[in-house]
C-alpha cells in the first residue's frame, strides 16, 4: 500500500468533512465536519512523515490534534453561548453579518 492510497483516503475524508461543513445546519455538525477536515490533514502529515522518513510531520500531527481539541472546546463554548441567546444553533439563522 503506497503513499497514493493514504493521500486518497485523506482527500476522501477532507471532502466528506467539507460536505458536512457546507451542508449541515446544526452548528455542532459543522464543528464535526471541521474535525474531519483537520483529521484529513493529519493523515497526510503522518503519511508523508513515514514516506520521507522525517519526524517533523508526526510532530505537526500531534500539534494539530492538540489545537483541534482547543478549537473544539472554544467552538462548542461559542455554540452554547449562541444557544443561550438565540435559542437555536441552526446555522441558517446565524446571519447577523449580512450586508
Amino acid at each position: 500500500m503506497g503513499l497514493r492510497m493514504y493521500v486518497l483516503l485523506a482527500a476522501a475524508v477532507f471532502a466528506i468533512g467539507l460536505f458536512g461543513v457546507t451542508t449541515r445546519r446544526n452548528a455542532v455538525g459543522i464543528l464535526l465536519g471541521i474535525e474531519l477536515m483537520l483529521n484529513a490533514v493529519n493523515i497526510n502529515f503522518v503519511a508523508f512523515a513515514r514516506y520521507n522518513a522525517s519526524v517533523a510531520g508526526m510532530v505537526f500531527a500531534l500539534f494539530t490534534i492538540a489545537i483541534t481539541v482547543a478549537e473544539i472546546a472554544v467552538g462548542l463554548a461559542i455554540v452554547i453561548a449562541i444557544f443561550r441567546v438565540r435559542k437555536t444553533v441552526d446555522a441558517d439563522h446565524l446571519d447577523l453579518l449580512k450586508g
Partner: protein
Amino acid sequence: MTSLALAVLGLPFLAFLLLALAPPLRRHGRGAALVSIAAIGGSLAAALRLWLVPLEATVVRRWEWIPAEDGPLVSVGLYIDPVGLAMLVLVTLVAFLVQVYSWAYLEGETPPSLGRYYTYQSLFAFSMLGLVLAPNFVQMLIFWELVGLCSYLLIGFWYDRPAAARAAVKAFWTTRLGDVGFVTGIVLLWRATGTFDFTALFAAAAAHRLPAGLSLTMFLIYLGAVGKSAQFPLHIWLPDAMEGPTPVSALIHAATMVAAGVFMVTRAFPLFAATPPVLGLIAWVGAFTALLAATMACVETDIKRVLAYSTVSQLGYMMAAAGAAAPQAAFFHLVTHGLFKALLFLAAGAVIHAVGTNDIREMGRLFYALPQTGTVFLVGTLALSGIWPLSGFFSKEAVLAAVWNARLGVPFAMLALTALLTAAYMFRVVFLAFFGDRQPGGHPHDAPAVMAVPLWILAILTVAIGVRGALTGEGGQSAPRWLPAVSLALAAAGIGVALVTYQLRLVSPAALARALGPLDFMARRRYGLDAAAAAVYRGLVFGLSRLIGWVDRYLVDGLVNVLSAWTLRAGDRLRRIQTGRAQDYVYGIAVGFLLLLIASQIWR
C-alpha cells in the same frame, strides 16, 4: 517736449486717481468737479503750448512695459507729430469745455453722482489722450479699450434707467465685436512684421519692405474702427448711446471717441495704403454709412438722435476720405466736425435743459426764447450743412474732392446725396424747434453763462477755422473747379427742401413721406438693422449658450451622474452576496479553490 506731453497725459490721470482713491472728495461733488476741470484745464494749456511751438520732427519716447527675453515685447510711450498735436488740442479743448458746461448742466445731480461723473470724465480724458499719443498698436489698443469703458460707464451714468443700462451694454458689446477684429489684426501684424511700433512699421512701409498679403490683417484692424467709429453694420450702438447725459454725447459720441477709428486709420495710413483693396472697402463702407445714416436722421424726432445719426453720417464721410487715400482730408473733417458737432450737441443740451424734452415735435419758436442758443445752433447747423465760409464747408469739400480724385464715382454720388440730406435734416430740426409756429410749454430761457460760454467758444472757433480757410484757400486739395458750386448748391437744395416742407408748409411732411413710401418705411424702422442685431444676439449667441448650458448640465455631466448612479446601484446589488451565513462563505472558498486548481491544471 516730453515732459509737456506727459503733463497733458498725466494731469487728467492724477485727477482720476485722486477722485477714485479719495471717496470724501468724490462724494463732495463740486470739489471733484473743480479738481477734474483744473486738471483738464492744465492739460489744455500744456497741449496748446506744445501745439504753438513748431515741431521739427516726430518725437517718439518709449518705456518698456512687457519684458521679454530679447528686448521688450511691448512698450508704452509717446508719439508726437503734427496730427497728434492737433488731435491733442481738439480733445483737451472739447473735454475742457464739456466739463465746464457739465458743471451747470448736471446741477440737479446728487453730489456723489456728480463726483462719479467727473471721475469718469477724468478717466476718459486720460484714455483719449493716451490713445492719441500712442506710439504703437498695443498702447493704442489699451487706450482704445479704456475709452470704450468710459463710454460704457458714461452712457450708463443714469444706471437705474433700464434704457440707459441697455444702451451702455449694447455699446460695449458692439464696439467689442469690432475690437475682436482689432486685436486679431494686431496679433497678425506682429507675426508678419515682428513689431507693433508705428515708427518701425512706417519705415518699412516707406521702404516697401512690408510683407505681402497684409490685406486680411489690415481688414481686421479696420474692423476695430468699424466698431468704434460706428460704420455700417456696427453703427447701431451710437444712436442708443444718446441715453447718456448730453455733454457726454457731445464729448465722447461726437467729437472724440467715435473719431478714434478715423484717427487710427489716418495714423496707420501708410499701412492701409499698402493694401488697396482694404482702402477701397473703407471708402465704400464709409460712403454707404454716410448715406444710410443720413436717411435715418431725416425721420428721427429725438433731437439727440438726429445729431447721433448725423455723427454716424459724418464719420462715414471721414472714412470715405481716408479710403480715398486722403488722410489729411479725413483728419481735417474730423477736427472741424469735432468742434461743430460738440457745439450742436451742447446747444441741443441747452435746449433740452430749457424745455425738458428731446422731442423736436414738442418744440417750436425757441429762437425767440433762447436767442443765444439759437444763434450758436444755427452756426453749427450751417457748418454741418457745409455753407461757406464756415469750417464745415472746407472740410467737406476736401473730402468730396478726395473721393472724386480717387475716381470713386458711386461713393462720390452717395456722399453728394448725403450732403443734400444733411442740410435737409439739420434744417428740419432748426425750423421745427427754433422757428415754426408751435409754442413750447413753460418759459424756456437761455442757459446760464457757464453753459453759454463754451457754446460761444465753439461757435467762434467754427467760424474762425472757416474764415481762415476762406482767406488762405487751405484744405482744397486740387479740387475740381466746379466742386464748391456743386456742394453749395446741394446744401442750398437741402435747406430749400426743409424750408418748403417745415417752415413754409407748402408741402406737407406726410405727403413727402408718402412719396418716398418704402424708403420712409425702412428708415423709420432703421432698415431692420437693430432688429437683425438683436435677433442674432438672441438667436445665435444666446440660443447657442442655452444649448451648451443644457448639454453641459444634462449630457456631459449627465454621463458622469449615470456613472455614479450605476456605481451606487451596482453596490446595492452586490451587497446581497454577503449573506452573513458562514457556510456560504466556506462554500465560496471551496469552489474558488477548486476553480483555481482546475485553472492551474489547464494553463500549466
